[in-house]
């Protein structure tokens, strides 16, 4: 290709372009948006997990000065035209999802009505005055009791089963005859993304021009726009979504939810912009649930510890109103259960079931249960066989020279070497050293342990609307460059990433490149931040648009330098004649010629901008990692202290190691929270009992160890060989932590199989074991 230059910025720890505004309080999050005459919305939410709505009396609320409207399902729900989500597609049969509860509430926090008032304070005053007449109904709060329960969550699903699927049936003969067979029932609690910025939206409807403008907190500005147009049945070109900063999403902000629908619909009935900012209690009560799976996993091994077969049979809670259609995404748990190992036979079977709890939504590594259960089972197996868990993994984990490798469920692993990250992690850890230390500690009555976790992860999956990503790159009249992508800064550093990539593809100095993202009026369509796709997909888009623009720049430069295009390379924001560096022309001069002196172009096109929509030919970019965690358990209090944490990962060549490590560390700590602290707990009646930060325990700096990183950079199949890095940390860490605890407690004969591993639960198990052996 013409004018190709070596990367200068990709692979380096470039400081982020997002940081300066965010560090000085100049970011723009949705709650920072003020509009003239803006009104504030607050939802009336169900106090019952399950109840009939007999009537709603809004008179007292409407009588409160400053209250503009109270909307119920009767006002809002009929406005829905289409409500399907791109990730599932238009034709997939979907589960019910009314904007406001109709006739019946199905979980505590179910939105029943919207109050619109002059301030959030007033709106909350009015919410207390809306009198909803309920008849409580029995609720099924525990999804493990939902199948066949007398309590029915949705009429259309009399057995409470949303769906399910099975692969090949398990080879029972093999399980019956294998040298070693392990089986365990493992329960993963409900824990959730908890972005520090809750959900929120500002919707402004201009009836005269039929224009809808939305300021959102979203991972997918363009899909929010497309969804709004579909929902309201208005032309997409009349809808504009503007998102500058989003305070974290982790899956919770991928698709518009019922509250977003309700506000969009309500805004059309109010002659003013409407802002809804979720408060933290609402976020923990109503935004949705994730994880929460119960299942039985089995593995068969030969006498040497080689895996012969793996089987998983599980039930996933999808709550009351899952978003989007949950059945297919859950299949990934079954498909990936064999993991990064040489597994000849695999089988899976699952059900997704409704319960009177908030609906299932995406969360960083939605299929994480496959890694949790597989890695926990491997450690349990190792102890049973009498092998070090590291050794058991070593003899089963896939090597690079075995690629491509099809796992028994047909997953085509390639461009990776799980054994490499595993060996690197073992090396960083110093396995022998630790086992020695562990023996000495035990002799002194101290319980320390080590846990491994390895996984292989499909990143940047090119399916449906996730397969393409658009980019527009423009050289402005000053010679400076602007790159436009869907983006939406949600913490994944996508602004910095595209600036780095654009500078490289154009040979520009990084300070000459800026990016504009999150405004659908000026950015091309993209699927946004989800599925660990931002790096590989955006790289493809920037590469294609950049190649076209580079050709345009080179053409003008060639004409200006009177040289052949092939003889020109771009570097340091200049076009230089190869072999005669004295002869060069700056981007500024090239832009001047194009914008202000086109007569001199002698037929060469003045165009200095390009738009391309990258269509990934790589179906999946396989990333993988090995986590190693060490801990000490205080067997008096049950307190777990993590002492070392190592992540060796392969996300392909790193565009920016800071960003990769930041993503990995953030995900890892979310998983540590899921292993030890976080639980969105419900009582038997379906009341949420962890709806504040006093009861929902996020990890803080004092619970988190220093994370040591190892990098393996095996190029993937896509542009630049980049793979995704967004979800891995959250997938790998829970089993590493649990395995470390189980390793520490092994001398006591204690094995945790129910998460989270709270101090109280650890002590309960230790005491039970003591009772039993007494």
């Amino acid at each position: 290709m013409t004018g190709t230059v070596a990367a200068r910025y990709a692979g380096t720890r470039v400081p982020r372009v997002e940081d300066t505004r965010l560090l000085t309080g100049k970011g723009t999050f949705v709650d920072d948006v003020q509009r003239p005459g803006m009104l504030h919305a607050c939802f009336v939410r169900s106090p019952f997990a399950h109840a009939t709505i007999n009537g709603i009396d809004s008179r007292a609320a409407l009588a409160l000065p400053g209250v503009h409207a109270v909307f119920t399902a009767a006002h809002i729900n009929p406005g829905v035209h289409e409500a399907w989500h791109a990730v599932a597609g238009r034709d997939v049969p979907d589960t019910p999802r009314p904007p406001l509860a109709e006739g019946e509430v199905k979980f505590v926090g179910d939105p029943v009505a919207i109050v619109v008032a002059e301030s959030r304070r007033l709106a909350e005053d009015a919410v207390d005055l809306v009198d909803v007449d309920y008849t409580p109904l029995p609720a099924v709060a525990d999804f493990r009791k939902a199948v066949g329960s007398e309590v029915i969550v949705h009429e259309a699903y009399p057995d409470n089963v949303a769906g399910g699927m099975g692969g090949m049936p398990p080879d029972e003969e093999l399980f019956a005859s294998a040298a070693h067979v392990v089986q365990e029932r493992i329960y993963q609690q409900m824990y959730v993304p908890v972005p520090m910025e809750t959900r929120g939206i500002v919707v402004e409807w201009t009836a005269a021009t039929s224009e809808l403008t939305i300021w959102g907190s979203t991972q997918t500005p363009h899909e929010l726009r497309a969804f709004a147009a579909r929902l309201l049945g208005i032309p997409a070109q009349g809808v504009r979504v503007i998102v500058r900063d989003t305070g974290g999403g982790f899956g919770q902000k991928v698709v518009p939810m019922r509250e977003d629908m309700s506000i969009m619909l309500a805004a059309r009935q109010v002659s003013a912009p409407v802002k809804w900012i979720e408060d933290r209690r609402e976020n923990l009560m109503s935004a949705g649930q994730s994880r929460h799976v119960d299942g039985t996993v089995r593995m068969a091994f030969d006498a040497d510890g080689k895996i012969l077969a793996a089987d998983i049979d599980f039930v996933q809670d999808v709550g009351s109103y899952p978003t989007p259609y949950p059945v297919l995404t859950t299949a990934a748990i079954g498909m990936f259960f064999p993991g990064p190992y040489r597994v000849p036979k695999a089988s899976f079977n699952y059900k997704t079931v409704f319960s009177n709890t908030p609906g299932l939504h995406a969360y960083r590594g939605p299929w994480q249960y496959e890694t949790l259960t597989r890695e926990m089972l491997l450690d349990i197996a190792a102890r049973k066989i009498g092998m070090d868990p590291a050794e058991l993994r070593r003899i089963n984990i896939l090597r690079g020279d075995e690629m491509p490798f099809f796992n028994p469920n047909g997953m085509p692993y390639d461009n990776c070497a799980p054994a490499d990250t595993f060996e690197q992690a073992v090396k960083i850890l110093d396995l022998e050293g630790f086992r020695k230390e562990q023996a000495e500690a035990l002799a002194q009555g101290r319980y320390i342990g080590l846990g491994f976790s390895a996984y292989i992860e499909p990143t940047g999956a090119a399916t449906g609307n996730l397969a393409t990503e658009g980019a527009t790159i423009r050289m402005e009249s000053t010679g400076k460059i602007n790159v436009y992508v869907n983006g939406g800064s949600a913490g994944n550093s996508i602004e910095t990433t595209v600036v780095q990539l654009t500078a490289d593809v154009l040979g520009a100095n990084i300070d000459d490149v800026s990016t504009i993202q999150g405004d659908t009026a000026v950015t091309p369509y993209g699927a946004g931040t989800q599925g660990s796709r931002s790096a590989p997909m955006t790289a493809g888009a920037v590469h294609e648009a950049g190649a076209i623009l580079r050709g345009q720049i080179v053409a003008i430069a060639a004409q200006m330098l009177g040289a052949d295009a092939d003889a020109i390379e771009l570097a340091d924001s200049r076009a230089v004649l190869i072999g005669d560096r004295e002869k060069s022309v700056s981007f500024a001069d090239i832009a001047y010629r194009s914008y202000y002196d086109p007569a001199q172009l002698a037929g060469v096109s003045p165009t200095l901008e390009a738009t391309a929509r990258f269509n990934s030919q790589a179906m999946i970019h396989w990333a993988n990692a090995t986590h190693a965690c060490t801990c000490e358990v205080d067997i008096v209090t049950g307190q777990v202290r993590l002492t070392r944490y190592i992540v060796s990962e392969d996300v392909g060549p790193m565009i920016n190691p800071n960003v990769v490590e930041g993503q990995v560390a953030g995900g890892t700590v979310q998983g540590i929270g899921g292993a030890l602290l976080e639980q969105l707990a419900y009582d038997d009646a379906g009341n949420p009992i962890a709806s504040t930060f006093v009861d929902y325990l996020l990890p803080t700096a004092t619970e988190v160890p220093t994370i040591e990183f190892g990098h393996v950079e095996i190029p993937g199949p896509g542009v630049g060989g980049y793979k995704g890095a967004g979800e891995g940390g959250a997938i790998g860490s829970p089993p590493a932590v649990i395995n470390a605890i189980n390793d520490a407690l092994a001398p006591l004969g204690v094995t945790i199989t129910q998460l989270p591993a709270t101090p109280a639960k650890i002590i309960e198990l230790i005491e039970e074991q003591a009772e039993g052996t007494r």
Partner: protein
Amino acid sequence: MKAAPFAYHRAESAKEAADVLAEFGDEAKVLAGGQSLIPLLAMRLTHFENLVDISGIPELQGIDRVDDEVVIGAGTSHALVGMDDEVAESVPLLTRATPHIGHFQIRNRGTLGGAIAHADPAAEFAAVALTLDATIEAASSRGDRRIAASDFFTGLWENALAADELLRAVRFPVWSGRTGFAVHEFARRHGDFAIAGATVAVELDAEDRVRRVAVGLLGLGSTPHRGTPAERAVTGRPVSDIAADEFGRLALSELHDIPADLQGSASYRRRVGAAMVARAWTDATTEALDA
């Protein structure tokens, strides 16, 4: 999460505050640091027509040594208590309890009087007051009175103050001689409400016998408690004869209202509580032996 409306009264003096309380009774609530009250108001878990802000009253601020007591004004912040030299010298238990209270941003606002009046069973300063048999000074338009800490904590978040009474100051007795002090607590995360905790003050005689000992228990009931049976059992005994674990178990042996919640069962709290007492006992006696 916005509070319902209320009227706000900024009191310039304790008398002014007491007058407002006398006027509104149950419909008024004292606002000191607000670190517990404001969240309850924001979540609309409670409501008062009137808040009486005492945070700006000079006479409620400050720490004084008066004879064998350290008198701390109700409005003195946790942070000031924690960094005060007189307190560190004369009532070290307070100094050592302070770092366990929330986080430094909370300690900058929260007040000693507020923490004790709020009477949270897991509140460190409440437990220290009970441990050291502190005296609470109450003021009202009807006059002043003093309440022994042992009579002050009457229930979950309930205290012996009448609706028109203001907590003006707390008087902490100074322990002298061969003394040792320790605070141990166990919480899910640093700064969380303790699942269980213990404060131990001990004084030894020249022969290393326990002259007096006081054990405070946090998070192990509707109020802070004393480990009376353990105190009784070891007084007059040589330290070397006392097994810390037994001491810990004994300290909790008469507790009957240990709570259970998401963080653990009553029996788990009992186990952890006993361990915290044992660890605090060991630290406190070690310190006293070296004194």
